[in-house]
């Protein structure tokens, strides 16, 4: 691709409502006004994080692309490249203690660096576009920029250098290591270059998983009400289907909260199988107390519920693959294709069991 082709594209305008409160002033850079951002994390930023962690406005937590300054402008300040996901910006602002630095913000459509890199939005072309648009080499008088290591997936430093004259220095994985990295003359040690998935990293993902997975349970309510009407000829109390669905709510908690926390300790390599090992004992316990949940004592309808609990948990834990730092495309492809076949077979048995149980 030529530079002209890269530069010849429309820009997406992003409102600055998420960062307006952080702008302390402006610095003039080559005739353009560059916002100077504060390092403070305000209550607005904290609430913003809580909201997106719960899935509220998760895809609209962006801010305008381009150049920003933190600290005071002076010669030799490093240029750090990042995404236009506002949460990433907050982590950088709060964790990087460096006296002054430029931020070059790429258009990742409000997505974090690593996911955007996988999609290609945080990549060679977008970096070249912003470097050229803001004339970083000449206006900031620098020959290199720092790109977060997780931004490397779709980055070709050779092409960036060829078209802009700028070299890429790959920074550490985590923003909190940037100060040491810069003090060490942009050298990262092994620990800075290894991605982790500690329990705290897994814990912060659980609210979103829990909330998102509820949407799979909601349609079960009208289905159950309809099934009762079909099998008994009249509508039962509307509370009974809720009680019958409470085990699924428990499965959601198991799959969305317990599973991520216990991930390293669960047997088997597949996520769906790990989830099933977790739900198996709980499902058996529930069915041993089937009258409590209004599940009846018909062995076939109990079998049906049992199979539904297993598939549901396997399904939601399989979806967690997209939230981890270590699942590969080929592995997930294998597991998803296999799970789909098995889930269809088990769902058919569950349905057949329910119907035969009803008939007899």
């Amino acid at each position, binding site marked *: 691709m030529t530079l002209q082709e890269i530069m010849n594209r429309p820009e997406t305008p992003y409102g600055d409502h998420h960062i307006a409160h952080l702008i302390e002033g402006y610095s003039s850079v080559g005739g353009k006004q560059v916002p100077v951002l504060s390092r403070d994390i305000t209550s607005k930023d904290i609430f913003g994080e809580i909201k997106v962690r719960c899935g509220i406005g998760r895809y609209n937590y962006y801010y305008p692309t381009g150049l920003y300054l933190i600290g005071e402008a002076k010669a030799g300040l490093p240029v750090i490249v990042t995404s236009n996901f506002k949460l990433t910006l907050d982590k950088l602002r709060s964790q990087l203690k460096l006296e002054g630095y430029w931020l070059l913000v790429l258009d990742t459509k409000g997505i974090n660096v690593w996911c955007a890199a996988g999609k290609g939005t945080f990549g060679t072309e977008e970096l070249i576009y912003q470097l050229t648009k803001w004339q970083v080499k000449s206006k900031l008088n620098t020959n290199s920029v720092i790109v977060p290591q997780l931004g*490397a997936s779709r980055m070709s430093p050779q092409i960036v250098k060829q078209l802009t004259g700028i070299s890429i220095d790959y920074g550490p994985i985590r923003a909190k290591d940037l100060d040491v990295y810069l003090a060490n003359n942009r050298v990262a040690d092994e620990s800075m270059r290894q991605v982790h998935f500690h329990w705290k990293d897994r814990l912060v993902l659980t609210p979103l998983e829990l909330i998102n997975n509820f949407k799979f349970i909601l349609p079960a309510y009208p289905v159950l009400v309809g099934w009762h009407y079909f099998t008994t000829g009249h509508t039962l109390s509307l509370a009974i289907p809720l009680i019958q669905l409470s085990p699924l709510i428990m499965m959601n908690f198991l799959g969305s909260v317990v599973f991520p926390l216990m991930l390293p300790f669960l047997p088997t390599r597949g996520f769906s199988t790990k989830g099933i090992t977790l739900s198996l004992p709980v499902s058996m316990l529930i069915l041993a107390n089937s009258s409590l949940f209004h599940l009846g004592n018909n062995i076939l309808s109990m079998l049906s519920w049992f199979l539904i609990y297993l598939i549901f948990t396997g399904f939601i834990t399989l979806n967690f693959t997209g939230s981890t730092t270590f699942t*590969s495309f*080929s592995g997930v492809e294998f597991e998803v294709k296999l799970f789909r076949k098995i889930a269809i077979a088990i769902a058919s048995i569950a349905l057949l069991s329910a119907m035969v149980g009803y008939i007899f």
Partner: protein
Amino acid sequence: MYISKYNTLKLELAKCIGCGLCKTVCPHRVFDIKKDRAILMRREHCLECGACMSNCPTGAIEVKAGVGCAYAIK
């Protein structure tokens, strides 16, 4: 560790010039540089992000890069 049996990562040593970029960018430290050439130290930890392939100046690395996400599987 996840299912690594179907991993598509390939390193063509003949094209490798030992620049070390693959080692730098890999988030799971799959590569090391020994005697001026890249070697695969932890291939089973590869998540196929494609960073090594994208950064390799000589095209010595090939991988079917994608995101390890169930929603992405057609």
